[in-house]
């Protein structure tokens, strides 16, 4: 992907870098303000859905945009975390914070196992391997109804009481928790890509042999970014299970992996805030077009094709070009 992503490491001028940093700070503040206003102007459950998928898309983009690895199986971490969280909350009666932690932890372990297999191959093979491994998780979920509830999924997951005190049954209360989780995820993502670790990941993405010749163990960095991405996807999946009180086969299906790719593509591959915009666009579209049934798939396919042919930078990529600053 090296030649298609904005080389955001290319701005070397110190002033320009400070400029970019302050722009990003302002965008973050803008997002925080939007999060405060959102529940009063939009349906909270809808906003929470957008936030969960935005977090999921951020996780996917961490791997693609900063690790240069296209995973076509991110539904595995999202869905498995969703199942574990739902199971822990419903059958073990865990508090939501522990249920979410359990889901996220399992996603990280799954990411460690799958990641160490998938990074053995590169490029197109990497995408196929992650897809095949995710399909394995799908079949596992289909065949273990005692854990996953089979076709029904795990329904009526209790939202429970946060820290045993705050009742999350009310949508407004839950909203603030989800908004906080999202903000924490976004800050963690931003911190990771701007850390020395993130810089090395970008170096490996742009020129792996050179990074290796400089003494970096490329595979360890790739695996680390894979695990972080799976973990973030798991956080999104777990939170989704609490919000919708449901974990189902849809979450682990390959079409979910495709959806997160689409969100990131629409928002802008390798941009920082693009996946959030992409998630907003795609989730809104699904909401408005829900009555059209199978046409939604066709429309998503058309968006895929149009994006690849005409609109490769994505929404934020185009805006970033206008203002000549990475977003």
């Amino acid at each position, binding site marked *: *992907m*090296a*030649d*298609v992503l904005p080389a955001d490491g290319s701005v070397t001028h110190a002033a320009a870098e400070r400029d970019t940093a302050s722009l990003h700070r302002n965008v973050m503040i803008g997002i925080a303000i939007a999060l405060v206003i959102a529940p009063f102007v939009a349906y909270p459950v809808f906003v929470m859905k957008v936030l969960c998928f935005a977090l999921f898309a951020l996780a996917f983009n961490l791997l693609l945009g900063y690790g240069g690895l*296209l995973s*076509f199986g991110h539904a595995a971490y999202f869905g498995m975390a969703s199942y574990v969280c739902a199971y822990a909350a419903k059958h073990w009666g865990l508090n939501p914070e522990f249920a979410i932690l359990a889901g996220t932890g399992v996603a990280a372990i799954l990411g460690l196992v799958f990641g160490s*297999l998938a990074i*053995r*191959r*590169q*490029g*197109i*093979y990497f*995408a*196929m*391997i992650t*897809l*095949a*491994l995710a*399909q*394995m998780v799908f*079949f*596992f979920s*289909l*065949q273990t109804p005692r854990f996953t509830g089979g076709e029904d999924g795990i329904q009526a997951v209790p939202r429970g009481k946060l820290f045993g005190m705050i009742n999350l049954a009310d949508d407004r209360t839950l909203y603030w928790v989800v908004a906080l989780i999202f903000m924490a995820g976004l800050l963690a993502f931003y911190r990771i890509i701007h850390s020395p670790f993130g810089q090395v990941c970008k170096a490996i993405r742009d020129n792996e042999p050179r990074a290796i010749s400089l003494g970096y163990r490329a595979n360890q960095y790739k695996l680390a970014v894979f695990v972080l991405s799976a973990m973030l996807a798991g956080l999104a999946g777990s939170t989704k299970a609490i919000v919708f009180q449901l974990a189902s086969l849809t979450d682990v299906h*390959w079409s979910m992996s*495709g959806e997160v*790719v689409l969100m990131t*593509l629409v928002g802008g591959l390798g941009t920082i805030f693009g996946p959030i915009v992409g998630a907003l666009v795609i989730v809104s579209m699904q909401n408005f077009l829900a009555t059209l*049934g*199978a*046409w*939604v*798939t*066709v429309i*998503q*396919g*058309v*968006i*895929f*094709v149009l*994006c*690849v*042919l005409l609109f*490769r930078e994505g929404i934020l990529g185009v805006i970033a070009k206008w203002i000549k600053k990475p977003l």
Partner: protein
Amino acid sequence: MFELLGIPPQALFGQLLLGLINGSFYAILSLGLAVIFGLLNIINFTHGAQYMMGAFVAWMCLNYLGVNYWAALLLAPVIVGFTGVVIERLFLSRIAHLDHLYGLLLTFGLALIIQGLFRNQYGSSGLPYQIPDALRGGYNLGFMFLPTYRAWVVVASIAVCLATWFMIEKTKLGAYLRAATENATLTQAFGINVPLLVTLTYGFGVALAAFAGVLAAPIYSVNPNMGADLIIVVFAVVVIGGMGSIMGAIVTGFSLGLVEGLTKVFYPEASATVIFIIMVLVLLVKPAGLFGRAA
């Protein structure tokens, strides 16, 4: 009757035959993927949808035009192959200079469109396709009953695979193809029309998928989703075999089908995942794939 490891031979050979049939589809589809990947450097995610289109075109030929199975076996690959040519000219040729992951995303989008359109038109419950009269019935081999149609599928698949292998490895056209795969610029410098070759190759790979679809139509019902899950298994097959060798793709496809059949007999729970598990093992032991060249 004798028994093998406590399994009645009827069940064992029946599943092996079914495995061989699945293996035929894996072989033809991974062959098509390998041929396309070799020249176009993209993974054709639309392959599953094109396999499904093959089955549907055969069904349409029969139900709308009254064209029988044998004609459809020729006609469907030509028609679907032609849509492949259109797709290559309209879309793929425009992104050939980009990172090959864009090819994956584009063909994924096309697969969603095609599958969605067929689902809207024909629903997802599946349509029946009769076995042609000449291939009804079967033979009693003593240890098992061999349905004629299933035997035909295996024979036809092997024939098509070998013909493809012969064409690529032994003919002049195949030599051009291999030359262009190795170095497209240099091949073009020798006066060979590489863009045309690329278009025809994509069309041919797609036609192979459609051929498999026609073969599959009487066995599985004709269903808009029939290619969607299959293509993921075929991806795993391709990872296991590596896309470097034509014969490798054929051998891997048939053997994995057999392994899947055996798993259905001895440990049915794992039959859906056994190919993915083999993929994991191969990645651990020989990451480049059984027949692959190290990247």
